[in-house]
């Protein structure tokens, strides 16, 4: 079974878990994801892999408690088992040949951005990391980013930590100051990725984004995760989750993400009542 070997809160509503899944740990690459069910009869949700330990056979996941399922997941403790854990799914982020990259992470998206920054760093690539959070309480993975970044900039919406403002401000400043990136890799909320792409487009810097749409099976079977890329329909689970940011139709993706918002709100409230535990 998929035992939780470690559980640690990173902030009030972001949790890190290490899960025993040796086969997944052996194969996983930065950028790939798993589909899990916390309990039998639970929902299948995709979560990006934010690290592996092949010796211990564990896979690290970091999740924000946003809905009924992540809430349910957060009630499990060390020693408990997840009902299901399938992966690694999707294509790994393509990093070959990169010499200088700016990694932009937003919120819990940093959990995916960090292993990418780490791998780039291990490859000998110069890594600039820009991360953004709502405020100081939401900050995660500061030490990990510092360890693998040649430059590390923290932005918060309210200025309670790092600098006040959005991630695109320092990104634009760095580019304009003459930094020549082979690629910008952006992972975070759709709106953030959309604005990163609008920032890099005039400079024609290749920009990869990691999409995280609604998904069920994760193997290309349902098409629920489809999005429009360069005018063509793509399935994020098998064609992605990484795509050329210049080609992604973000507006459509944002609307599709909202498809079950009403239901999710209701399920989340039901779960809150059921668990009667204060989160956020």
């Amino acid at each position, binding site marked *: 079974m998929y035992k939780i070997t470690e559980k640690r809160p990173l902030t009030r509503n972001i949790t890190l878990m290490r899960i025993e899944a040796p086969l997944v740990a052996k*194969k996983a690459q930065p950028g790939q994801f798993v589909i899990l069910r916390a309990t039998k009869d639970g929902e299948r949700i995709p979560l990006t892999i934010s690290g592996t330990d092949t010796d211990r056979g564990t896979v690290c996941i970091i999740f924000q408690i946003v809905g009924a399922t992540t809430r349910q997941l957060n009630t499990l403790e060390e020693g408990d088992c997840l009902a299901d854990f399938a992966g690694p799914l999707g294509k790994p982020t393509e990093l070959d040949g990169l010499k200088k990259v700016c990694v932009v992470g937003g919120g819990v998206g940093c959990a995916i951005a960090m292993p990418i920054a780490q791998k780039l760093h291990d490859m000998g690539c110069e890594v600039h990391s820009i991360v953004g959070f709502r405020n100081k309480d939401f900050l995660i993975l500061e030490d990990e980013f510092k360890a693998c970044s040649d430059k590390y900039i923290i932005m918060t919406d309210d200025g309670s930590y790092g600098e006040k403002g959005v991630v695109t401000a320092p990104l634009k400043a760095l580019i304009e100051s003459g930094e020549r990136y082979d690629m910008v890799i952006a992972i975070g909320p759709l709106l953030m990725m959309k604005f990163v792409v609008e920032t890099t487009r005039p400079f024609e810097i290749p920009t990869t984004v990691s999409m995280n749409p609604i998904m069920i099976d994760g193997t290309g079977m349902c098409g629920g995760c489809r999005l429009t890329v360069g005018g063509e329909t793509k399935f994020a689970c098998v064609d992605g989750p990484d795509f050329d940011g210049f080609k992604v139709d973000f507006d459509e993706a944002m609307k599709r993400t909202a498809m079950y918002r009403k239901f999710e709100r209701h399920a989340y409230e039901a779960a809150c009542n059921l668990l009667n535990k204060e989160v956020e």
Partner: protein
Amino acid sequence: MPNMSPKKTPMPSQDPKVRARNFLEVSQGYTAEMAREEASRCLNCKHRPCVSGCPVHIRIPDFIAQVAKGDFDAAYDIISDASNLPAVCGRVCPQESQCEKLCVRGIKGDPVGIGRLERFVADHHNAQPGKKLKKPVSNGRKVAVIGSGPSGLTCAGDLAKKGYEVTVFEALHLAGGVLVYGIPEFRLPKTIVQKEVDNLIALGVKIETNMVIGKVLSIDELMDEYGFEAVFIGSGAGLPRFMNIPGENLCGVYSANEFLTRTNLMKAYKHNALTPIMHAKKVVVVGGGNVAMDAARSALRIGAEKVYIMYRRSEEELPARREEVHHAKEEGVEFMMLTNPVEILGNEDDFVKAVRCEKMALGEPDAGGRRRPIEVPGSEFLLDADCVIMAIGTSPNPLIKSTTEGLETQKWGGIIVDENGRTTREGVFAGGDAVTGAATVILAMGEGKTAAKAIDEYIRNKAK
């Protein structure tokens, strides 16, 4: 003396008005008396035309003779010599175009209700606790089966009976493939699929769920590192097709696969399910196959007020089973034939609000012999809808092909095999929808059976 009634013994079923709002099984099956009465309609013909119509060649007259006698266990043994999933096939096989089509009684009147009898025998067996199958003695040879749908389960069962140590790898969290994610509860209760899977486990078959082969392990690794001497690929045709018309990515447009997976596998229709599904009022299902019927009838049960089947040819050409069409009509699904959607329109939040359609007429027959639908100029009209389900077919999933060197496929994705299910890679066999593209449960089972025989021969020859 055979029962000479020209009509099949009727099978009780739920009232259409009631069943259109619940997920309980539509047809309720024969009682022992009904089964014996129907079995006595069989003439036990010498030339046994029905058997040649069965893709897995069940000895039909023999099992029916046992039913007529009232020895249902003997009947079960005869069926299970040939079929590993009788309770499933008795429900979802297109008997009218296979065994029953060739039945002599069908010349004047109804053919013998072979499917109904098969279902009865299997259900009777499954209802008896402690009727465990015996695990055969292992021959120590390992075979991997990829996919736990009809072809994979059949192949696994046949090999296990021969003593092979079979492991079935399933990508989803539950075994059964299309039997659990695709075919709805009201047509095939999931407890029945689970029983059939349990029967295989009793035979010694191991089932590993959450294993996406091609990702977590490759076929090469299974053979080189895990000691599997042969691999059967039964990964199905899971890739949904879309029409590529404007508006297809609006909220409220589903592939039939997604709609059915949410409903069947994830039980989204249940009040307390964590998996959401849209509770649409007006649903347009595009397509005319069995999957379209399943989606339409599921939509009704979830609470839709109006459900349309939109098909570009006429009712004559509907590829779905007659029985499914009949059931759908009884339940209130409206059939909009010779109509094709050309655009899906959304509201300000990008939720579906209408479908722009055009009328079609039938022209000359195409390469496949079916009359080609052609647009009627100036026939466009708008149809109000808040949900559209695309049920226009699926293609084989490319995941395994793209990670297995030397495995040749057709241009459209089907794995290339010879008549025994051998692929272009030594020791690798394939069958079911992964080879043929979307077809029926029983055809997939037939191919799983053929491949199991070929795998047995392959391994025995190798051993020499």
